[in-house]
């Protein structure tokens, strides 16, 4: 126990951990940007379609199916398949971030899709009738009524997607990409407990910070009128 702690302190106090190309900061940067990019692209890919499906009150079965299928496919498997496709079709080399990015987009999209459809459909039909009765156009109903009221669930989907993406970006180290997972995979390879522990804490903390941070955003974008209900 004490030895592990000493190894950890050794690793933390080593200047090489903090400076240079493989430094903590550059790995953190890689990890965060790929996660943010994947979540944004995933959002852009499915959001308009999900919005439309929700508005015409369809696609709830598709949304359920997406959740169930998504859960059954291991994220490690999605990463592996993305790697296979990218390398096989010569889109990107082995050490490029493309396969990781593609896998992360595929992981980010389903929760955003499902929660957007569910969020729009959770708006009471009576509310929409009232809005139509007041003379709002379909566009105004969607953007002025349904979208704000669905906001908590949509942001919940974004949060689930982002935290999942942060977690899976760690596995990117297995397919030779960088990010914070490198510490863990490299640490396993050379059996350096200090490095392993450093990576574990870095990744764990990042995930918790992402989760907590996103919950804050989620609360901020919830319309005032809905906060009372929750």
């Amino acid at each position, binding site marked *: *126990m004490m030895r*592990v702690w000493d*190894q950890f302190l050794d690793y933390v106090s080593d200047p090489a951990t903090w400076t240079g190309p493989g430094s903590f900061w550059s790995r953190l940067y890689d990890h965060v940007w790929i996660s943010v990019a994947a979540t944004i692209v995933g959002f852009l890919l499915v959001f308009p379609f999900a919005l439309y499906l929700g508005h015409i009150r369809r696609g709830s079965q598709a949304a359920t199916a997406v959740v*169930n299928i998504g*859960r*059954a*496919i*291991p*994220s*490690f*498997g999605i990463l*592996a*398949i993305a*790697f*296979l496709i990218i*390398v*096989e*079709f010569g889109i990107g080399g082995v050490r490029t971030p493309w396969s990781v990015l593609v896998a992360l987009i595929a992981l980010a999209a389903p929760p955003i899709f499902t929660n957007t459809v569910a969020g729009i459909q959770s708006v009471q039909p009576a509310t929409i009738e009232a809005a139509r009765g007041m003379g709002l156009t379909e566009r105004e109903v969607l953007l002025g009524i349904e979208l704000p009221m669905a906001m908590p669930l949509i942001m919940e989907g974004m949060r689930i997607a982002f*935290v999942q993406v*942060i*977690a*899976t970006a*760690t*596995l990117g*180290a*297995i*397919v030779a990409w960088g990010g914070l*997972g490198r510490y*863990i*995979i490299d*640490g*396993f390879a050379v059996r350096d*407990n200090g490095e*392993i*522990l450093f*990576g*574990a*804490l870095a*990744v*764990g903390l990042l*995930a*918790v910070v992402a*989760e907590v941070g996103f919950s804050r955003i989620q609360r901020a974008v919830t319309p005032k009128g809905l906060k009372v209900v929750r």
Partner: protein
Amino acid sequence: MSPVLAQSDQLIDWSWVERNMGQIIDRTWEHLTLTGISVGVGLLISVGLTIIVLRWRWTYPSITGFTGLLYTIPSLALFALLVPFTGLSDTTAIIALTSYTLFILIRNIVAGIDGVPEAVKEAADGMGYTARARFWKMEVPLALPVIMAGIRIATVTTVGLVTVTAVIGLGGFGFFILRGLNTFFWTQLIVGVVLSVALATILDLAFIALQRSLSPWARGSR
């Protein structure tokens, strides 16, 4: 175009599958035992924690807070956190996998028990049930569909997470995924992914069947 097509025709090398049937069976067993032990132990701990929650309600936020925190930690990080202490072992895998099931299971068990209609409880009281009998004969059976939903989610999630234990020398079907990645042998990789999805689906369907036989009154309404 044709070289790419020719390559993808050979994505699955069936002779490899035939030659490695023994190992596939071994890894199936490994995947099943890791999943079974983790969900089983997770269920025992969750039932214990639920009993605490039902007796002392104020403990619920801290228990869900703590198990939620465990749930947020990425699997690779949790394995890595344990490896310096428990090594590259089954113990490491089972501790981590078990801790992921807790959040899902406790939330569903508590929600299930809470969802039992007040009128049913009053009817039971009126029929002279003791508190204990009411709990086991009324509340638990009525909560069963929600509890089983939790067990299904926990099981399917665990089947997926077991593949990641390949990095600590286990992995079940994840072993094939990792090997396939490292050697660029797509057959192995695809076999690993497909079998993992198949196992998750089969277990999910098995639990649906079990739940239907245990709570016949809930048939149709799900």
